[in-house]
């Protein structure tokens, strides 16, 4: 922690500590902020460069990649090519992309719908054992998914959905629910009681209040949940490894199967990894506000 603070306050120790700031302390501040600027630029590069490297590698031929590092692009620009991407899309990657979509979209819709109903009940309905039941949900927030891999594999084997997309979707949905219910319930509780009471006074049925009052008012929280859930499922590898067979495998599992020959499959791996992160990045930049809100609200996960 000591190093933290030293770095955090570069001008500390040099400042007089008096409320009056002399010329000298202003100069020191300027210098300090210059150092901070440089350090921050370097740190930013440190975070950006690895991904940039992946992009460059994916756009060069295997021969060039084997001969020299991707950073030589700056000194002697080798010809960039989409060859790797053509090879990738001609192989099994395209099917795995659609599998990822087929897994992610239904899961996100199911989690939002089912969790919103439960969250509404937890927030605005009275029933025996409500608080205890909600504490169970809070407890389930951090259950490791490893606990369910074996039991659910046995069940899926008996029912006959092992390896199917349905099985993967249901598993994701169940494990997305605790976080989703937690997030939405805490939001719904903040809806003004007068709005709900007015609707109930008018004799509106609960499902109608849910659809026309709670759901529209909950949009910000639902957007946060949606983006978070989408990315979580899109990026998952473990559940896919266990429950998706090779015909139904998403991108992560397909790319993992190419890892064994890392060197010789570099073209497929780099281009595939880059394509797999395009959609999450676009979503992230478009909805970063909701993403951050969802993350903050669910930081126990």
């Amino acid at each position, binding site marked *: *922690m000591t*190093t*933290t*603070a030293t770095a*955090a*306050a570069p001008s500390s*120790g040099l*400042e007089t500590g008096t*409320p009056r700031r002399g010329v000298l302390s202003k100069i020191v501040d300027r210098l300090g*902020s210059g150092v901070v600027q440089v350090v921050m630029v370097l*740190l*930013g590069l440190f*975070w*950006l460069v*690895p*991904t940039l*490297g*992946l992009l460059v590698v994916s756009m060069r031929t295997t021969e060039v990649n*084997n001969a020299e*590092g*991707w950073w030589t692009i700056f000194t002697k620009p080798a010809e960039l090519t989409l060859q790797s991407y053509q090879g990738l899309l001609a192989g099994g990657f395209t099917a795995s992309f659609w599998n990822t979509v087929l897994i992610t979209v239904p899961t996100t819709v199911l989690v939002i719908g*089912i969790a919103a*109903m*439960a969250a509404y*009940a937890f927030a605005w*309905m009275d*029933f*025996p054992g*409500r608080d205890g039941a909600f*504490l169970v949900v*809070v407890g389930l927030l951090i259950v490791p998914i490893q*606990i369910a*891999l*074996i*039991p*659910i*594999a046995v069940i899926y084997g008996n029912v006959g959905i092992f390896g199917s997309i349905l099985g993967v979707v249901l598993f994701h949905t*169940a494990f997305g629910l605790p976080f989703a*219910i937690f997030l939405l319930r805490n*939001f719904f*509780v*903040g809806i003004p009681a007068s709005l709900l009471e007015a609707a*109930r006074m008018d004799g509106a049925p*609960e499902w109608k209040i*849910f659809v026309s009052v709670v759901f529209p008012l909950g949009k910000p929280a639902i957007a*946060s949940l949606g983006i978070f859930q989408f990315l979580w499922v899109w*990026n998952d*590898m*473990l559940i896919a490894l266990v429950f998706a067979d090779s015909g139904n495998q998403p991108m992560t599992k397909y790319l*993992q199967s190419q890892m064994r020959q890392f060197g010789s499959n570099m073209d497929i*791996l780099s281009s595939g*990894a880059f394509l797999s992160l395009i959609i*999450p*990045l676009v979503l*992230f930049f478009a909805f*970063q*506000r909701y993403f951050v*809100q969802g*993350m*903050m609200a669910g930081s126990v996960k």
Partner: protein
Amino acid sequence: MTERLDGPQDPPAQVAGGPSTGPAETPRKQRRLGPSPTVAIVFLLPAALLLGIWVVYPIVYSIFRSLFDSTGSGFVGLGNYAMIFSDQGMLTTIRNNLIWVVVAPIVVTTIGLIFAVLTERIRWATAFKLIVFMPMAVSLMAAGVVFRLVYEENPDKGLANAILTTVHDTFSSSQGYPEARPREGDQSPVALQGGAVVTKQPAQVGTPVLFPIVGVKPEVMPSNAQPAKAAPAGDGLSGTVWFDFTQGGGGTNNAVDASERGLPGVTVEAVRDGQVAATATTADDGTFRFDGLPQGSYVVRLPQSNFEAAYGGLTWLGPALITPAIIGAFVWVWAGFAMVLIAAGLAAIPRDALEAARIDGATEWQVFRKITVPLLSPVLLVVFVTMIINTLKVFDLVFIIAPPSVQPQANVIALEMWRVSFQGGNNQGLGSALAIFLLILVLPFMIMNIRRFRRGDS
């Protein structure tokens, strides 16, 4: 607690706070028109079914399954758990998880705190936050591929070693000439002695020394090597180290010919009575000179380090460094999370408290340590605990970054659980025991969450 990476914050929306702030109070009393419990059950049913079958039942099933052997029919009691703590590979796995839990959360929280404080001092904070936060959106699979590239051992391919070797070569001028050796024979003025090349006759100040070297491989010959020159005689001890070989034949052995090139960057030592009296480095034309050396005779030596292979960086993906290397990737992924949470906490600190302390004469360092950090401690705790839970569950990064041959040394519980249950081993009794072990490890944090939530609720 709302936060956005761009621009000023909105007035706090109604989005729920995390458990750190506690939920709003459930309005219970004023609800007289509420629906019957039957309606509530209908709303809860789908969630209850999914959670019951996919999450709660598996916990019970796993507890029982962990008491049976791989076939599922032989009762072994706690045998599977005993195996976790006795098998050598398993102990390595647990040791790795221990390293993860001790190192990764501290590093991530510290870096998050540094970044959060530093972003307050720059104008382009939004751009910085977006860049550092970006890996959060990317799959750990893709992050793993990114870091497999970074950690490639060959400095011409892997970024980490490219940086290391560049830094190393900047600070150490010695150029590696592996397998190079002195010209042999009676005519040669130098000989090999314990890996180093030394002058046969003691060198006198004022008489240039010649080091004819052969066996320099073309690929290690530096591009800046110039045609070799004989060092001018004069005061001071000087000489030439050069590649005594003329392409296509010709040239005189043990003499500096115009067609021959000097060896730049060779470390040269002047030794007197077994002590190194001075050190020099050869220029591009292979000449060197010791200035200000007292008169007398010296043995001039090219130490062995000149003939070792050039520094090639670290074996990141080898057994020794694999866990620290993967933790590095983990930090890259999660630093943004820590930074954004802590920055939100920083923004919530009342400015007057800081100003009051400054007016009272506190230094920036005191303000930071005595006011900022204590006020931030709830947020720091949330980040820290989240990272502990994440490190306990770490799977993808280890699985992708560690090459198959090194995976036993990089193994963690979550990966071993999958491997034992679904790969090769197919021992679901042991796999269940590992899953329960993992559950027990996160149990304290589960209880912590529940207690914190109840406190916030009442």
